[in-house]
């Protein structure tokens, strides 16, 4: 451990989230060469720890490996954006061995990426960008909010392209669900009857109308596989684990911290909206 940063001349800080120990240390070494002032606060090996550490230490830069156990780098970044309270949101750099996300599309944008093995020249470019972002962040908070919105937009794109890769499936007309009270019986739930989907552990809870009352069913198809089957006009993803049918949204409530939640027609439950998807509910 090197000495703690001088509080007067605050050094820029970073957290590295990478599950392969050799690669994490190699990145730290390369960064020490490319950006000697940067202080690596911590190295974590999974997405959940990355979010926890980032919230506690508030680094200037987060390096996220995309493929990590438990929670991917993309999901962790979204989770971090959701839980972020105050202060400037860290600049994000995604690190991946194989560019299946077409990350080049995001070159020269708020979110940067690196390919493994990390090339020192390419890393130098990233550092220049990060330094620039660091200078800009000392400006007005309005600009910071703009940059944050940009970051959210790009994250949304990346996560969407991730779920698109499961292929475009045939549109879902009926959902076949087991009826919990009737062994072996299956109910055909029409897409128009569905209120919302919500991920719970290994299952997805489907809340749908049965006549005039709403009922709950459990299915095994994960949210990621459901998304490409649903019409994006009618079904909106509002959280990592929640898809709601837009037509049943009644009111959108904003709490003191700026978090949005939805109340629905036909269900007493309210649904939390992740920050990643608040753009859906901007007032006209």
């Amino acid at each position, binding site marked *: 451990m090197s000495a703690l940063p001088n509080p007067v001349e605050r050094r820029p800080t970073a957290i590295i989230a990478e*599950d*392969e*120990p*050799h*690669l994490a*240390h*190699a990145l730290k*070494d390369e960064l020490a060469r490319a950006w000697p002032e940067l202080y690596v606060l911590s190295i974590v*090996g*999974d997405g*959940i*720890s990355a979010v926890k550490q980032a919230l506690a230490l508030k680094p200037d830069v987060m390096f996220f490996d995309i*493929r990590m*156990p*438990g929670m991917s780098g993309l999901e962790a970044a979204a989770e971090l954006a959701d839980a972020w309270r105050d202060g400037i949101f860290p600049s994000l750099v995604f690190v991946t*061995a*194989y560019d299946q996300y077409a990350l080049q599309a995001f070159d020269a944008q708020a979110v940067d990426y690196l*390919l*493994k*093995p*990390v090339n020192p020249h390419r890393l130098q470019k990233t550092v220049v960008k990060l330094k620039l972002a660091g200078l800009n962040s000392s400006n007005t908070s309005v600009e910071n909010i703009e940059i944050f919105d940009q970051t959210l937009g790009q994250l949304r794109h990346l996560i969407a392209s991730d779920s698109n890769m499961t292929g475009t499936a045939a549109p879902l007309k009926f959902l076949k669900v087991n009826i919990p009270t009737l062994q072996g019986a299956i109910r055909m739930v029409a897409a128009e009857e569905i209120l919302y989907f919500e991920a719970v552990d*290994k299952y997805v809870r489907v809340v749908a109308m049965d006549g005039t009352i709403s009922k709950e069913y459990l299915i*095994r198809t994960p949210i990621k596989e459901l998304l490409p089957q649903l019409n994006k006009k009618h079904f909106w993803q509002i959280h990592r684990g929640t898809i709601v049918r837009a037509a049943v949204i009644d009111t959108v409530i904003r709490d003191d911290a700026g978090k949005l939640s939805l109340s629905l027609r036909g269900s007493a439950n309210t649904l939390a909206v992740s920050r990643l998807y608040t753009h859906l509910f901007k007032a006209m």
Partner: protein
Amino acid sequence: MLNFYIPPEERSDMISRLIISMIIAATVTLFLSVGRFHAAFEQAIYCFLIAVLMWLFIDVGDCMIFNTAGKRFPFTKKRFFYVFIAVMAATFSAFFIGDSIAGWGYLNQKLDEAWMWAFINFSIAIVSIVLFAQRQRHKEERRLTNDARLKLLESQLEPHMLYNTLANLRALVKTDSNLAIHMLDRIVDYMRATLGGSRASMHPLNAEFARIDDYLDLMKLRMGDRLSYSLHLSPELKNHPIPPFILQPLVENAIKHGLEPMVEGGKIFVKADIENDQVVLEVSDTGAGADKDDLFKGNGFGWTQVTERLMTTYGNKATINLIATESYKTSARITFPYIIQPI
């Protein structure tokens, strides 16, 4: 509408079919000229005229009228009828031209013989088309197996695995050059086995185990404490033949679906034993565990490919199952008959 553009690939196929037609014409000429060689030249005129015109009308004509370059099969009823017309037209035009050059007067005096030839020619045309269709199908099949082999190779040299391994190697060169050399040796062995082994139809179990050891050791270098593994190969099975790549995809699945999702990682155990005259291969992991659905679905390409290879080699004498045991969350188990005299 006539289509006058014929792609180069189809053109070379057409030329080769023209040459075949000429060979048939030469053979028929020779056969018909036995005992009357003085008339061989006239005979040749008729035969070659028929051959060239039939080729022109059937092969080139079909391609131009129905625009079938590169997609000649399957044959339609309409095109079959066209072939009949084309044979008749080719035969009678050949006799017409032949009569004016060689003067054997088929159309004037021997019309019944001309009709006979027309039908013989039609049979030759049909036989040729059937043979050609068969050859085409074999070509297609060969292309499909090549595709499958390529896909297999891609899955073994998965880019994610390759780049991550190279990134680790790059990191180790500076920090621990001895470990880097060790890692490089493993990569070389793994690549050699993967790139060379795909052609052999069988190889001994210890070769498969060596490759799995290479793979798991590389993964261990990458994953650190998150992966521990052990291998057990019963000594009497060392040289027992198995189809290559039977265990490898299962080990990859154990890493990918079993250990990779787990933050704390886990353990992999690969064993080969004899139970009741059956070879029993097991790949077990303490990872995330498979869902009940996964047990039936299998998990993707690896599982399907292993099942297919087992079935082609052993038929219904082989079994493959995905089970959960007390000590392991997921255990893939393969059985097939033990061959007493190993290679």
